[in-house]
């Protein structure tokens, strides 16, 4: 049963991503991206990653879309066809090579990734190395060693708490980078009348 839901969800996810890439109307593309994120969150819930699904629903479908739409409101809604004047034609390479090159790169990358799956442990395999080495200890000890029933939180805030400090710093960095790029008033703000 789960497999069927899984396959259906994945199918919709692929459809969404194709639509998000090829739509000319950026607003629709963004909304479809939000749908993609949301379906992804559902898929992760199916795969039992509840914390991640929660975060993705809040971030991917929420904040990212809001920011993207806000950006659109300050820029343009539609993708445009650029008319290249004659004198600039040599600068803007518009040959077949520019269309084919990305496809070649993508196909090669995908082929390498697929090659990697040959020796991969099977999906849901309980004997895969990742389920044998480090993780069992977390599952076994998290509640009495780290004091949290939710193992993900235990790892996040305790075992690998330093990573989370890094994560918080990344957020802070994003905030200050956006402020430095977009804010217009003087920084030590005075009252503007």
């Amino acid at each position: 049963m789960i497999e069927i839901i899984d396959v259906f969800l994945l199918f919709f996810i692929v459809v969404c991503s194709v639509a998000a890439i090829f739509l000319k109307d950026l607003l629709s593309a963004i909304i479809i991206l939000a749908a993609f994120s949301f379906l992804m969150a559902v898929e992760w819930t199916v795969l039992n990653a509840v914390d991640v699904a929660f975060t993705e629903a809040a971030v991917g479908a929420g904040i990212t879309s809001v920011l993207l739409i806000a950006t659109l409101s300050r820029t343009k809604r539609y993708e445009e066809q650029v008319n290249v004047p004659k004198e600039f034609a040599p600068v803007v390479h518009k040959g077949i090579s520019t269309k084919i090159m990305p496809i070649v790169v993508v196909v090669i990358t995908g082929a390498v990734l697929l090659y990697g799956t040959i020796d991969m442990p099977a999906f849901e395999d309980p004997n895969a190395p990742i389920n044998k080495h480090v993780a069992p200890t977390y599952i076994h000890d998290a509640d009495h060693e780290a004091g949290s029933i939710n193992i993900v939180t235990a790892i996040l805030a305790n075992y690998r708490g330093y990573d989370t400090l890094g994560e918080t710093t990344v957020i802070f960095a994003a905030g200050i980078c956006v402020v430095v790029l977009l804010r217009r008033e003087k920084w030590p703000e005075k009252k503007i009348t």
Partner: protein
Amino acid sequence: MRFLQHLPVLVILIPLISAVVIPVIGRVNRFACWIVSCVALFFSLSGSIYLLNKVANTGKVTYHLGGWKPPWGIEYSIDHLNGFVITVIAFIAFVVAFYAEKSVEHEIEERKIPAFYSIYMLLITGLMGIVITGDIFNLYVFLEISSLAGYALVALGKHRNALVASFNYLIFGTIAGTFILIGIGYIYMQTGTLNIADLRERLPEFYNSTVILTAFAFFTVGLCLKVALFPLHFWLPKVYNYSPSVVSSIMAAVGTKVGLYVMLRVMFTVFKVEFSVENVPIANILIIISSIAIVVGSILAIAQTKIKLMLAYSSIGQVGYIVLGATLTNQIAMTGSIIHILNHALMKGSLFLIVGCLVYKAGIERIDDLEGMGKRMPFTMAAFTVSGLSMIGVPLTVGFVSKWHIAIGALDAGMWYFVPVLIISSLLTAVYFWRIIEKIYFYEEPALLHEDRRVNININWDRREKRENFGDRRINLERRSEFKGTRRKNKEDRRRQLDKQWQPLEQWDEHGRWEVVKNDRRVSEEDRRQFMPDRRSLEGIGRRTRDYNLALIKRGEAPWTMLAPTLVLSGACIFFGIAAKIPVAIAEKAAAMLLR
């Protein structure tokens, strides 16, 4: 002592905390931001020197964050390579931060200065965090901190092309980061661990697994993109060219070096030498690619007319040296490649700082404008000469030490055909540096009021816009403090605002960079008042456009806070060239450890 025991984490933590505190301090005082960042980096520097010393004396230093044992928690492990690179980063970062104050004031909008220091500290935190950690996912997190900071710093450049350069950098940086994330995923899938030491132990049994091969391929491509190895270098020149001088110097000096460090770590610590050399042909491919990079980088550098672009392309070549030395997998060559991390950081750092001095003092960005600068800025130009000679690889400079080691290593490994590559690239480097050195010392300095150098400033006071005709070129100089967007009710406030608005011109005069001239002679105080009406009287005048004749006058050195760091770095080029034993001893041990 308890405090010293926690030094591995404090070295990272102090810059991090200062990065967080600086924006708050910046609300009170901007100068304090500079002080705080310098103090924090000085602490990091002394801490990392202490750690390096400890490593040299007693061997590996480890620190378990959260007190959890390694495969479960995150571990900081410092060995010779780590300690060496982290000291280099802290040293360069401290010197550049000391240099930053005046240069940033000149090149970045005033209100962005606290944020600049904060992001700068985040960049350093990220870079040092990457180097010191012993956990591969922690490495990814800090990689992203440093990259985010890098994107924003590049975007602070004045020209609008800086934004595009930054965006391209962001796209390729993110692709590289995601590739690395995929690599981590594949490795983790097969081994179930994220700790580097643990990975090294557990990986050998999977060396023939396609999963691991793919992971290695993705790591290599991602890191090549990060360090701008030759075919994947396209984002780099514009980034260095359009970012503020401080930023390009720190990025050129240590930004790519950290990528190279990660490359060494992945190729020789996470995987063993046998894997990277024998199981996969990647090492052989990298040898060829890097030797092409060395030559092509040098040739492209010759073709440039802007100093910064030239240095950027030469960086591409220099990255090739480090990769070449590492992939020869010979102990001597590896030593050379590790020392070159320090050496190139010193040389490129000092060169970009010199460019910053030139921009600050004389507004020079083109190679042609350097004519006769030897007389006007003797110290700066002496530093330039030293660093340039070092880039060429003249004996008694650092450049010689690393090239010598790589060449001997190539001979030792029986690959004599790489020695000509090194010699050719040295000759090419000599070509593009000699060209400049010739201009500096053997050309007449242009006459004070030579026709070409006359500048026409057209100021529309109402719109606070300054446009300058510089010969046939037009330069659009931005104002330093922004006027638009704030409306002041109060007259006094508005007057103060206007005063600020006027400051730049005054300051230019102070530094002797521009002087107002009329009919080919300097303007007397009265004439000047005629040209620049009393600022009080400006109020209520309304729209007004004025033409000025300004002459470019290149005289005198940059202020000592800029000059001293430059001289320190270029002095270090000679110091470590003569006293090469100190870094070589550490690098030899690091190389032995990598090739174990």
